């Protein structure tokens, strides 16, 4: 093995609008009928709309069926380990302000093994967009109970029915301080695109939970919110601040308590933006710390800084 040969001359760059064709990578390994296909198609549309420079987009994930996502998207991508994609993404986001970081994962990755990281990503409000494709079952490992499986759902690890109370993702996300919290459904493509695009444009830790059916191990899980299956897809009506009487009944997305009340509605609940706030991101706070510190050191060079540290220890 030799060391790396000199890189070949860089090709001239022609920024071109991103299209589905450009963004398509490996063929998805999901089962036919899986809700995740629709999430992927919606994400291509979101990237087309956002018009970010191609090389500055990062798509990453943890472990699970949905976490195969980065292989199917032609951007810089990372397939990390189970449950730890958020701290990894935080490193990418804090390390490089010029990047747009999208994290995809499932309910097990996000709410179970990665639960503690979700809590702290929310608390720190690191700038990134996190899409949780929730199918309420462990699919990749073939039907075990997930943290969002409803009580009574029969799995290989709960053959007589799940007994532990499921997590309420919306209530959890509002409580941990996520600064953009939305919910969508994989059968509602336009709604998904809108939610993901708004999440991406939000400056902070933005999360979209998408109910995405596992046709293999939990068929019909989300039919109650699917009009084509006799359900009802109830969307949140957001306040327009138009002074009308009906506006007072609409949801104020900056109201944490109102978001909590919406999150507590009976299954299948409502869809849309539950909560958004403009609190400072960790990215901004860290940049502020750097700016204040550099002001004190009068923007000395790295060498001067280290030399002065050593001088003090003579």
């Amino acid at each position: 093995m030799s060391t790396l040969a000199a890189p070949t001359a860089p090709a001239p760059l022609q920024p071109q609008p991103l299209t589905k064709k450009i963004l398509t990578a490996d063929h998805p390994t999901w089962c036919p009928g899986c809700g995740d296909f629709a999430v992927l198609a919606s994400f291509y549309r979101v990237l087309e709309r956002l018009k970010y420079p191609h090389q500055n987009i990062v798509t990453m994930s943890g472990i699970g069926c949905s976490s195969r996502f980065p292989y199917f998207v032609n951007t810089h991508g990372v397939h990390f380990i189970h449950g730890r994609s958020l701290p990894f993404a935080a490193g990418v986001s804090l390390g490089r302000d010029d990047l747009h970081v999208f994290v995809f994962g499932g309910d097990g990755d996000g709410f179970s093994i990665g639960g503690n990281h979700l809590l702290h990503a929310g608390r720190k409000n690191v700038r990134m967009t996190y899409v949780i494709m929730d199918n309420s079952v462990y699919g990749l490992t073939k039907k075990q109970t997930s943290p969002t499986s409803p009580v009574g759902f029969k799995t290989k690890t709960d053959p007589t029915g799940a007994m532990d109370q499921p997590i309420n993702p919306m209530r959890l996300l509002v409580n941990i301080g996520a600064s953009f919290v939305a919910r969508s459904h994989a059968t509602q493509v336009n709604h998904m695109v809108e939610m993901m695009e708004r999440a991406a444009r939000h400056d902070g830790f933005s999360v979209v939970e998408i109910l995405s059916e596992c046709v293999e191990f939990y068929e019909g899980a989300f039919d109650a919110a699917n009009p084509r299956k006799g359900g009802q897809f109830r969307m949140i009506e957001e306040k327009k601040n138009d002074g009308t009487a009906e506006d007072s009944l609409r949801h104020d997305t900056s109201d944490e308590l109102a978001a909590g009340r919406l999150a507590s509605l009976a299954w299948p609940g409502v869809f849309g933006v539950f909560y958004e706030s403009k609190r400072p991101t960790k990215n901004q706070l860290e940049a502020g710390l750097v700016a204040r510190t550099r002001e004190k050191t009068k923007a000395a060079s790295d060498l001067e800084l280290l030399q002065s540290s050593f001088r003090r220890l003579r």
Partner: protein
Amino acid sequence: MTYMTIPSTISGGPSIFQVRMGSGEILTSGDQADFLVAFYQHSYEDHIESLRPGGVLVYDSDHVTPNPDDRRFKAVGIPITGATVEAVGGSSKDKGKNLFVLGLIARVFNLDVPKIAALISERFGGKSEDIVRNAMLAFDAGYATPSDNLRDCFYMFEPGGQRSGSGHARVSMDGNLALTYGLIAAGVRYGAGYPITPWSSIMETLRSELPKYGGTFVQAEDELSAISHALGFAYSGHLAVTGSSGPGLSLKMEALGWAVMAEMPLIVVNVQRGGPSTGMPTNVEQADLLQAIYGSHGDAPRVVLAPKDVEDCFNIALEAGKIAREYSTPVIILTDQALATRIEAFREPDLAALMVDPKPDLTPRGTDFQPFPLDRLTRHAPPGAPIATGKYPTVSGLEHDEMGHPSASPDMHQRMTVKRREKLKLLGSKLAVPEVYGDTEGEVLVVGWGSTWGPVREAVRQLRTGGTTAGQLHIRHLHPLPPGLEGIFARYKDVLVVEMNDEGLYGFGQLATMLRARYALPKIGSITKTDGLTFRVGEIISRVNQAVTDRRSAHISRI
């Protein structure tokens, strides 16, 4: 200061600060004390045996009653508590006793008083002027205590002894600080960690230093998050660091496996302490070697380095950064509690020549770009770097092909496994053959790693003075091992590995086990201990002599 320990209890307890002075090289903390200050009866009782016969015991006569029949030492009672209260006055009670004793020591050993006064006002100046004034009152009272007759007990350094020739300044710091500055010199601007003793001081310093350099250090919610953040920084194109101590390293092991699979450059510091589990958090041990080399899961080769002294903490951090980038690999630095807290003076490094540019390489990558080429070293393209083909790489923990796409091909797994192994063998082949100190052939070769360097060197020096032909081999590159060791081992009758860990079920310490597996030489023996303290020189000498005798007689009995 050659050794410090503060107990891992919130309320405090007996703390030890041990200092050794000399005009030459200080290799060890010394086997016995010349001068002991006892504030309390228990400290007198616990430590009087560490004083050499003829040494000086200064005790606080307000609290300590020494055994009147013990005439081995020069015992001097001073009412330290009373004198401090008298000097400081007011409501401060006996706070400042330590500064009183510092004044006394400054008098006895003729220390540079203006320099100490400056340090005191630097240390306490942030609080209030009263505190600095009280501290100096206590110090001055200690300095004024009649103690000139004590001075005659000790060798006096030549007055005005100038620093030897080179004109280079010398700096004093502890191992953790030297390591931290080494990381900065290596180009580390980003990192993440979780507090644990004795690693914490590295992350604390990085947290306050890195923003000056435009970077940041994240206090993560746990160890798993810490290494994940660091890997995120690394993926984004920065040289990044994470670190911990023993149990924290165990928590990082899964993500370390990813770093090996994804061939991600990363520096991981392990400031070893006594284990397993919470173990002996403020004591020294070298029992994480095998975890560092083999921990994690699957075949996950990575680089493991260990510094030999405080100055080397700086050097090894620089080298770790260079290796991590060049070979696109995680590098573990195994330092330990003794090095972490030991303050040593060393020649100020030539920073202008050593500083590494920290900027991520975002240059466009050509059409031949592959993140995981089988026949070349990996050079990742961080996000932000355009790729000429328009095909962007996925950095993956799944076994993958050269473009980073998942591959379940048995052949690809075999070939990638070989690639990850061979790149470290390439590194190993490029390392310098370590130099042997002392006799380059003869009776016994004493092998060490990490902070045992000093005591082993002193022991070999004394063994040679005593007529044994002995050499010292110190291994800084533990994985991969440097070349040429087989030839060195061949020149000695016995090879004894000195390390601070247990001999285990099969009778050999961790490095000895590795070396026996690698070189299959029955003459490789093992000297180990796990009492939480650094090796004493006398201890090494007697155990080397014992081991040599035992092995000779075992050999004879077999004949």
